[in-house]
């Protein structure tokens, strides 16, 4: 018999007796979790990316005030990318009786490459997606423009030297972001073929030329890299990551939640695997010794062990990947209606991830134990109690730690994160072990406390010193996850969902003249019962930083340069918005009449090297002002509120040229008031946020669902740890209770002893778990997710109770079989 056949045969036989159950279950759970997350982020993540790119109308966007060479379009298409071109410019649109400034967006066929255009047949009608673009001679107009011109669909508008017929109301077009208030005029979508006829392109006209591209992520990245070299300085390149801070932030958090969940799952599964593998090895020592006495060489044993591991890897990888794929299928199916785009098919990469997970866990955590089998002394056939071959601790822990780091690295794909997590794990692990030892030590003091069951139970814990610690730590880890799962997770998730409440503002009003405000306020008071708050809105350009002219400064990155060289949005406020948090300095108390104070967003301040106390010069509507930075703010970008890099103190600021903006929540059934509004306040531009809002909500909703789902695997992994820990001592317990039986101890006494032992173990583990969950929950909430998390005092009680109950019950139940076995059977079973 070859080592291969013997190994596989033994493995199969063991799997039939249930011996392998825990080991296989642990690895399968890890693989399932990893592949489910892998498949999920792969497919839905892809879909979310697509939706983010819908904001840009493509994956990559070039814009310039000069014409962009047409050869880029050709070259991009040659690379298999889709491409379209756009021109935007403001110009006057004339109707029969009225005229208005319109923002013309002339597009080529193919636009939008991502996302869709929503149109309706008349003003404030039902919006529906549409294919294609306006035919030459036709135009789709935003409601604001139609209202200002006081016309509806069917009207003929004169643009420059030509005219177009309005055939649709343009309700939504990609690229209509929340942050971009530059779009001050209402839009008119036309075919790019008409631009020539308009004859409006003259020197000095404010035209923006754009080209957009979309395709496979890799191809887009390559193209982007090439463009970066080819395009001139005047061309601005934007990619997905610039596609609106709200969406990026939401995706980011979602990925961190998922990462955390799969990480904990993998770690727990690895712990269970190591425990189960050790037990598996111990149980096979005798057989291996026998094989050796019958002439089996070390090579034979090695081959047999390795083939077992190989089979374990293949089986768990297949099963786990299959389950992971199914799990992800359920997940996607659950919320498919939420996604308007088609999901990309699951890629093989996620499948390979399953194999990788199975292999890493098996090799890292099971191999060291099983490899030692070949060193089993053959002498064991004659002397059972010979100690098993000693594990090379340094080497085996080294392998395990390497494997773990490898897995974490694969999950987080970020060296800094890897370091942080590894450090965190070491701290959690060391604290848990120290805590475990301390608790066991305390327990030893209570040994003599009560009757024989108590003494037997507690003595067991302290006698098995290090094993008890391992068990406590393992139980504690699983319980910790359980606690995090039930208490912290729901706290975190609801905290997160609160960032986009149901009644989040769904319309922005911009371009409000300050003297119009009372009228607007009254309008909403009357129609929807609440008056929105306004926000002053100033357009300003930075002129000086710390006294130095901006033109002389070298900027470290495009974000800083964009901020400094472009006209940006400013506001003044007396109170700090709720979604902002002061990180340095202090928010102003009241209007300081002497100078204007400014509060900067921390990120941009860091980019520009600005600290509290520095000065900035701004040009606001032609007036130069100097401001002093008195605080740095953290901004919650996905809060669906208008957010600002720079906020100014009131007082002098109120004299500067400005408009107001406001955001309101208009319930869907009251949308018709908007036509009244547009008629009454034609100068005010309405921005519909519904689409973006629902995108962000969708992402949060899907991600929360995914996270809960993945945490389910974490829970399963925790249970496998529990089972493995119980299984490890099972043989010993069988034997012990048989001896106790023969010594005259009743079944009841032994059972009580076991119950005391497991309940005590569970309570200690619960205590440790509550501590861990509190600490981890706090760190995770504050550091990783930037959410406020109030500590939950119930966690301690719940932890101890649940620990005592679950571990006490499961432990006693799982070892009950041992007690019930007739002692002869156990003692004679050599």
């Amino acid at each position: 018999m070859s080592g291969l056949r013997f190994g596989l045969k033994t493995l199969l036989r063991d799997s039939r007796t249930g011996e392998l159950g825990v080991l296989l279950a642990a690895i399968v759970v890890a693989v399932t979790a990893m592949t489910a997350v892998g498949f999920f982020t792969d497919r839905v993540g892809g879909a979310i990316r697509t939706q983010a790119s819908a904001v840009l109308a493509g994956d990559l966007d070039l814009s310039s005030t000069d014409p962009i060479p047409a050869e880029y379009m050709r070259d991009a298409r040659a690379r298999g990318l889709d491409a379209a071109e756009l021109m935007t410019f403001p110009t006057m649109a004339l109707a029969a009786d009225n005229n208005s400034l319109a923002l013309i967006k002339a597009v080529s066929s193919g636009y939008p490459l991502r996302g869709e255009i929503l149109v309706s047949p008349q003003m404030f009608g039902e919006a529906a997606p549409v294919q294609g673009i306006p035919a030459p001679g036709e135009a789709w107009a935003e409601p604001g423009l139609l209202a200002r011109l006081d016309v509806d669909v069917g009207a003929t508008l004169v643009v420059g030297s030509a005219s177009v017929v309005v055939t649709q109301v343009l309700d939504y077009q990609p690229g209509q972001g929340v942050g971009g208030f530059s779009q001050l005029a209402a839009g008119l979508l036309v075919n790019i073929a008409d631009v020539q006829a308009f004859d409006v392109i003259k020197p000095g006209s404010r035209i923006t030329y754009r080209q957009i591209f979309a395709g496979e992520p890799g191809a887009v990245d390559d193209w982007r890299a090439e463009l970066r070299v080819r395009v001139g300085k005047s061309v601005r390149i934007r990619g997905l990551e610039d596609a609106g801070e709200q969406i990026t932030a939401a995706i980011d958090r979602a990925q961190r939640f998922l990462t955390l969940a799969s990480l904990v799952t993998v770690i727990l599964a690895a712990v269970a695997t190591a425990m189960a593998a050790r037990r598996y090895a111990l149980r096979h020592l005798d057989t291996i010794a026998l094989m050796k006495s019958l002439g089996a060489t070390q090579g034979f044993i090695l081959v047999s062990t390795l083939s077992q591991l190989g089979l374990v890897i293949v089986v768990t990888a297949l099963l786990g990947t299959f389950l992971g794929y199914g799990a992800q299928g359920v997940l996607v199916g659950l919320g498919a209606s939420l996604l308007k785009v088609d999901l990309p098919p699951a890629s093989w990469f996620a499948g390979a991830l399953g194999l990788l997970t199975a292999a890493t866990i098996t090799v890292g955590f099971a191999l060291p134990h099983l490899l030692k089998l070949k060193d089993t002394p053959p002498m064991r056939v004659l002397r059972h109690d010979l100690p098993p071959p000693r594990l090379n601790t340094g080497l085996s822990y080294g392998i395990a730690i390497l494997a773990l780091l490898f897995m974490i690295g694969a999950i987080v794909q970020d060296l800094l994160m890897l370091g942080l997590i590894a450090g965190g794990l070491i701290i959690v692990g060391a604290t848990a072990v120290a805590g475990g030892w301390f608790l066991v030590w305390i327990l030893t003091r209570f040994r003599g406390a009560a009757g024989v069951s108590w003494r037997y139970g507690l003595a067991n814990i302290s006698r098995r010193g290090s094993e008890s610690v391992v068990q406590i730590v393992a139980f504690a880890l699983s319980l910790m996850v359980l606690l995090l799962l039930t208490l912290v997770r729901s706290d975190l998730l609801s905290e997160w969902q609160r960032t986009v409440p149901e009644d989040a503002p769904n319309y922005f009003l911009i371009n409000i003249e300050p003297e119009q405000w009372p009228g607007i306020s009254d309008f909403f008071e009357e129609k929807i019962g609440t008056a929105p708050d306004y926000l002053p809105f100033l357009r300003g350009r930075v002129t000086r930083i710390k006294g130095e002219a901006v033109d002389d400064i070298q900027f470290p990155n495009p974000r800083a340069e964009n901020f400094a060289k472009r006209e940006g949005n400013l506001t003044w406020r007396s109170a700090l918005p709720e979604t902002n948090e002061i990180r340095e300095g202090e928010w102003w108390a009241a209007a300081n009449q002497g100078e204007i104070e400014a509060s900067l967003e921390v990120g941009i301040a860091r980019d520009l090297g600005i600290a509290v106390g520095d000065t900035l010069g701004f040009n606001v509507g032609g007036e130069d002002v100097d401001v002093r930075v008195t605080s740095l703010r953290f901004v919650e970008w996905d809060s669906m509120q208008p957010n600002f890099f720079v906020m100014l103190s009131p007082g002098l600021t109120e004299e500067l040229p400005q408009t107001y903006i406001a955001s309101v929540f208009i319930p869907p059934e009251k949308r018709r008031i908007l036509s009244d509004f547009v008629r009454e306040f034609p100068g005010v531009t309405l921005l519909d946020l519904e689409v973006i809002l629902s995108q962000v909500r969708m992402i949060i909703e899907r991600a929360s669902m995914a996270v809960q789902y993945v945490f389910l695997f974490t829970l399963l992994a925790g249970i496998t740890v529990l089972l493995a820990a119980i299984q490890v001592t099972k043989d010993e317990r069988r034997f012990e209770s048989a001896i106790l039986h023969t010594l005259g101890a009743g079944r009841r006494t032994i059972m009580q002893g076991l119950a005391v032992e497991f309940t005590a173990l569970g309570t200690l583990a619960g205590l440790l778990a509550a501590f861990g969950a509190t600490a981890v929950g706090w760190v995770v909430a504050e550091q990783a997710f930037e959410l406020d998390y109030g500590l939950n005092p119930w966690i301690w009680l719940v932890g101890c109770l649940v620990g005592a109950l679950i571990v006490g019950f499961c432990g006693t139940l799982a070892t009950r079989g041992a007690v019930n076995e007739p002692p002869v059977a156990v003692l004679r079973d050599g």
Partner: protein
Amino acid sequence: MQDIVLRTEALSKKVSSPEGSLTILDDVRIAVQSGESVALVGPSGAGKTTLLALLAGLDRPSHGHVWLCGEELTALDEDGRARLRGDRVGFVFQSFHLVPSLTALENVMLPLELTGADGAKARATDALTSMGLGERLGHYPNQLSGGEKQRVAISRAFITKPEVLFADEPTGNLDTATGERVASLLFDLNKEFQTTLVLVTHDRELAARCDRIIELASGKVVP
């Protein structure tokens, strides 16, 4: 003089214990002839099992040498000793030691397959049938009684036609009648295959059936 298949020279075994070094076997010199049957007897703790393990190359001596079938064991590495055992040595243990994941037939086939011999299945089937276990070929060890297990173990021990068979209290776990049957089997096979038999036993009657008795006391051969 007949062939000597098993010989020791100044064999001793020391182990370290909490109370310092402990000598379990001290300067043991024995020689066993081919085809001979030898009983190792002595009080509990005398070192019988230890000696048997050294003779079979399951353990290494602290001093001295063992020649088994012409090979000096201390000169071989673990794999070398394993191969020697596979080719020329058989074992019967007190607690049978069948591989739980293999059937009776597969257990008997095992030594043949490990050495790569031909016709393993047919030979194992024959061996078990001649032991009266023809109906039990596909049974797993946990489906067999103690006596049946020991008969399977004996079939397995003799299947390679070993030159030397070691047995550590082969009847220790069996009732008197079964023990008697198993012992008879051992001696029959010893005659049939000319196998040298070295067995450790507390059973005076079983010892008396051997050609020679070597008595151990406190790690020394009693002259």
